[in-house]
Structure formats: structure tokens, C-alpha cells
């Protein structure tokens, strides 16, 4: 099943761990806040995405079920 990245932009403080762990999907803007370049998590990156989710100091990153696959 496809997984999707979601960021709580109010909780996010721009620590940047997600961009470190998932550079394929997340970059940072000039102030350090995440820019999701692709919110669909391919299977090969699922473990990295999970790790990013766990390590976010604000728990602002969520790897959830894709809204597409549940339709």
C-alpha cells in the first residue's frame, strides 16, 4: 500500500532531520523548513520514512496511508 508524507506545519520547528533522512522526498527552504518535493513514499524508502517520523523532535512528520489507495 502506498504511504504518504504529511507535515504538521504548525508543530514543525524546522529542525531538518526529515530532510537529512529523506533527501529524496524532502528538501528545506532558506529558513530550514521542509519542502516536500514528493509526498508519495516509494516502498524502497519506507524504512527511512518511518525513521524520519520517529526522530522528528516535534513529531510533526506523519507517514500515513495514501488517500488515493483508500479510495
Amino acid at each position, binding site marked *: 500500500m502506498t504511504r504518504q508524507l504529511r*507535515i*504538521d*506545519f*504548525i*508543530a*514543525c520547528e*524546522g529542525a531538518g532531520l526529515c530532510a537529512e533522512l529523506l533527501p529524496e522526498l524532502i528538501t528545506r*527552504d*532558506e*529558513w*530550514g*523548513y*521542509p*519542502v*516536500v518535493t514528493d509526498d508519495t513514499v516509494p516502498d524502497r524508502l519506507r524504512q527511512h520514512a518511518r525513521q524520519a517520523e520517529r526522530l522528528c523532535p516535534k513529531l510533526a512528520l506523519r507517514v500515513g496511508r495514501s488517500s488515493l489507495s483508500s479510495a
Partner: protein
Amino acid sequence: MIADTTTTARLLKVAAGADYTAHTSLIGPLPLRGSVRPGRVGPLGPIVAAAGLRGRGGGWFPFARKMEAVAAATGIRPPVVVVNGMESEPLSTKDGHLLATAPHLVMDGAALAAEAIGADRVIIAVPAAAGDRPRLGPWLDDLAAERAARGVDPVDIVVAEGPKRYLSGQETALVNWVNGGPALPTTTRPFKKGVEGRATLVSNAETFAHLGLIGRYGPKWFRAAGTRDAPGTALLTISGAVVHPGVLEVPLGIPVQEVLRAADAIPDPAAVLFGGYGGTWLAGTDAAALTIDPESMKAAGAALGPGIIHVLPRDVPGLLRTAEIARWMETQGAGQCGPCRFGLRALSADLDRALRGDIAAADRLRRRLALLPGRGGCAHPDGTARLVTSALAVFGAALPGWQDSRRQDPGSRLSGGRGSGAGSAALRSGRRGSRVRR
């Protein structure tokens, strides 16, 4: 008020003001339909669905689906209905006008919605201090008390006065404030977890007024005005270079041209702003070709928002007006997310510098604009970015050095050169000395 064949008064015709007896003699008593099982939408649901009523706060979301979502999310405690009359958009006055003209119609609609979803309370939220507008809270409070004494409504109607701030009308911010928190946006969806953590139906005051009439006259009557996808009438607030600024009610789908004529706008305006401070500028010729409905606006890359139309005066350069709005939007942010904390300030600073001839700032502005949307705690950064992006598309040719900077960046998503308008000459003159050349 504008009197013209363009307008179709439905809501504004129920102008009984505070007088409840006059109100019911105009349109009859509140058509209650009986209570419902928790988690279900009552008999009003199919009627609203058939009418095709859409929310008038700017989202134009189907109201029947919203009622279903709230009913489905309802737990042990009954849901709550919130009438959003905060009208925090500075270019909008229609909700205040409606609440002052037909307060009982708004309350009727809210009571019908509450009955339909099994809510036990209606909260009418209006601004505490409304600038030069009359304060509505205490007056509405008296009207609600009178209705309670008459036993009109199946639920309690209470009035809450919120802070007058741009974001306090944003629905998550409003609910957060009703719950005792600051009037700042949250990521909690009110339909699931709103007032006191209960499922909460929040909609614009005008939506409930339409509901008050749909409950009485039914879907067929409602659809006699408007388009298939956006039936009914809508309240518009028109301002700027018009002889008759103010609120008018029109059937959805009528040409923008007719609305401009009804308000006696200047002929051939350079540009028209749709949707408010977080809205979209369109060149006058493009604007005139549209009709007043969400689909037509969307096709042109604009949005009607809560029915706001602002005609750019001839003597005001569009970019300067936009820079002024962008600065104000910066001060109105909640500052809870990166785009708001840093992006908005950078945006208005870039625009100011670009206006003074700083080509590097103009380039930076375009880059930052592309990065801002979709990354905020609410849609405030998106709205500001939309406004500035549209301003560059419509008035960009007036930017000093804009043509040079565009030549160096063929990949730009922004189209300059259209409708440079009345402002371009004024902008170029007197600012030439500060133009920066690379």
C-alpha cells in the same frame, strides 16, 4: 444599497431587522422537522442536497456533505453549530450587513441546521470591535433571548464576540478561540473535533441565511436562481473605483460586467481583485469576461472567495496597492509556521525592493512565491502568495527592470506584459534614479 435589475434580493428582502413578528409575517414560521437519531442527518439533509447549497465563506463546499461529515463524526456528546460572522476580510461587509438586516433569517438557518444534525447549541460568532461598523454582539444577544422566551428554537442560541483580526475568522482559529484558546489556526478539523472537542458544523453567516429560506421554500425554488453547480443567489461586497460601493445580492452565474455596471464602476478598469486580500488580481478585460460563480472564477485562475470584488482605482498603481496589502497580511499572520514567520516578511520586503528597482529582489520574490503555498499552518501564506503572484502577472510590466529580468529567466511561470495599467507610468516616473542594472 444598489437598486438594479441585475440584483435578485432573496436574503436582503427578508429585512425585518430585530422584529421577529415582522420576520415571520414576511416568510412564515421556522419550519422545524423533528429531531434525529444521533449520527444521522435529519429530513433537512436531502432537501439541502437537492438544493445544492454551497458554503458562502469562500470555500464553496457542498453544505449537505458538511452536515453529513459532522453527523458521522458525532460521538456521545451532541454536535455544535457555529455561525461564522467574523468577517475578518477587510474588503467584505456582507456578513455584517446581513446580520444587521436579517438576523432572524440567519438564526433560523442555524436552528434548522442544529435540528438536522442533532446539535444542542448554536454559537453565533461576530467581531467584538468592528472598526467603524456597528457592534452586533449585544444586539444579537437580545434577539436570541427574545427567541428563547418565545420558544422559537429547539436549541440554545448564544452569541460570542471574537477578536477583530484577519485570522480570527479562519474556522480552526475561531473554534480554538471559542474553546478558550488564542484565535489562531490549529490543525484540528472542527467537523471532527471542534467546540469542546465535539463534532462542530462551522459555516459562514450567509450560508445559514440561505438555509433559512431553503427550509421554507425547498430546492426547486432555490435553484430558480444561479447555475447548476452553484445554485442560488450570493451576497457580494464591491468596493474600489465604483460609485456605489457596498453589498449586493445577485444570482450566481451573472456576468461580472453586469455587477460592475450595477455598482457603477469606472469604465474599463485596469484590474479587478477577486476574493479579497488573499485573492487574485485579474486584468480588467479578463475580469469582464467572467461570470460570478466559483467555476468560472477557477477557470480564470481566480476565486470568488466570500464574494469580494474590488475595482482598482485609476490613480492607484496595482503593485503599490498589492505591496500595501502584503505588508498588512504580514502583520496579520499567526506566526506559527515557517512560511508565516519568515516567508511573509520576506515577500513584502522583496516586493518593496523590487518596486524601487531592485532586480535581484524581483527574482528572489518569484522564487520565494513558488515555495510558499501549501506549506503553512493555514492558508494565510498561500493567499498572500496568490495575491502577489497575480499582481506580478497583471502589473509586472510596471516593475522597473522587469523586462530585463524576464529575459534572463525564460522559465518564469509569471506572465508579464499584460494590463500594465494606469500605474505603470506613475511607477516608472520618479523611480528611475534608483533602478538597478546588472
